[in-house]
């Protein structure tokens, strides 16, 4: 599809998973929306177009990541826990 980023799917997944930590108790964590932009250097290194990550189901530790016209869903309770912590 159009608007593909310069990031391959493999590297994208690899980078998205980086930094995952051990799972925590997440049932009460709110849904979160994270937008990383190119100008927010270092948030997601190598992604050259806006990236949207959405915690679809905190209890299940599921994160939906969208970039360009692609979407992947990852089960990463650790990442969800970190996002929940960042959201305060």
């Amino acid at each position: 599809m159009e608007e593909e980023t310069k990031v391959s799917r493999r590297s994208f997944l690899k980078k998205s998973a980086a930094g995952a930590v051990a799972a925590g108790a997440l049932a009460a964590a709110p849904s979160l929306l994270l937008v990383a932009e190119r100008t927010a250097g270092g948030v997601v290194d190598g992604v050259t177009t806006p990236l949207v990550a959405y915690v679809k189901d905190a209890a299940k530790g599921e994160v939906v990541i969208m970039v360009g016209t692609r979407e992947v869903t990852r089960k990463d309770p650790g990442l969800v826990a970190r996002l929940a912590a960042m959201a305060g």
Partner: protein
Amino acid sequence: MSSHREAPSISKDPVADNTDLYAFVDPVDSSKVTILSNFIPLEEPAGGPNFFEFGDDVLYEIMIDNNGDGVENVTYQFRFKTTVENPNTFLYNTGPITSLTSPSWNVRQTYSIWKVLGPRRTGERTLIASDLASPPVNIGPRSTPGYAALADAAVHSLSGARKVFAGQRDEGFFVDLGSIFDLGGLRPFNPAHLIPLPAMPGKDDTKGYNVHTIALQVPKTDLTAGGYAGTDSADPRSSIGIWSSASRQKALVRSGIGHGASNPEVQAGPWVQVSRLGNPLINEVIIPLGKKDYWNSTHPKDDAQFASYYTNPELQHLIALLYGAAFPSLSAFVSPSPGASPVAPRVDLAAILLTGIPLGLIPALGPFNNFTGPVQADYLRLNVGFPPVGASPFGLLGGDFAGFPNGRRVFDDTVAIELRAVAGATLPLVAPLLGISFTADPAAGVVDDGVTANEAPYLTSFPYLAHPHSGYEHGHD
């Protein structure tokens, strides 16, 4: 209307609202098929300062299924780009727009076209044209003098004598919307209504409004399986399915304060279909309110899930209820006894709208056929093997094989055709197959909303829909 504001969600998103779809063998060059897909309902021509335009953030698509599985084999994708030459004025134009390169034209749209072979999200995708100019909207004699020439200049020729146009047109659909949605009122038949009123002529409620059209003219061989020339109407390869849609990206993050070129909205994720259109009036009056948004999001290959709404449409019950005295046969059919179900499913409607009509199945139709296979899918079925020689606004009901439901031409009176079909006019054709006896009510052959033609003459050549009304001179009555 045909499919204008027909579902709760899309009624709030006009830029993506797919309002009408037409597909027909081109009457000027019968080796080609012309497809018109309309968006943005009921454009008030005096729409300044921000006149109507396609959405830069919308993916507009026209799909063709040429092997009857309900899945597209060919897709044309259109993406638009708006350019503001001078953001320091509130004006759409700073003087007369005399050409598509006029420096006075401040807000312009260009577009690119891709062709996808195979499923539209995973198939082989090729850019076939880019940076094509849309014409300006029709503002008035000072801003857009000589509008026809401006619009004609925006008919672009592509390789292989293909043509494309994307821009504002007159709303070519005609309907008495105000009466129909006042409890099924049909003004000429007002005295026969359950709540009677004096008979009167229909009123064209789309009169004086505009729409935005994507028009494409391509050889039949671009659309048919294996590039078949479509010369024999009896050849199954001559029948193709056509539908169109609009999609938006799944995620939108508004930028808040400072929104603009330096701080744009963020859009990401896969395309999500928010509007689709095959046969006219389906999501309007066949699909119930609670499933309209869902219907817009679904794919024709899955339309069997909606089949019961076609085979037992609410509309046939309403006609019997509201105009029972004029439709005794239909009334007895839909309710043979108090609380009973209809005598039989409306397989005539399912054939017309979901599979097409097989060759030889209905002797009364002679050689007519547009069957695409047993998969139930709501799209326009066009047998490109029938030459574009007829001119009956009632299409097949008028004995004209080149009109709806064989594709759809701009002048086909689809409101009358579908009203008559649902009222029972086509049921006798399949009654022997159902093992029932049914004689259509005389009223089924004449029922109408009283609006029989568009207020503006259609063009006699591509893109066929009339030039748009100007904001300076227009009216709705």
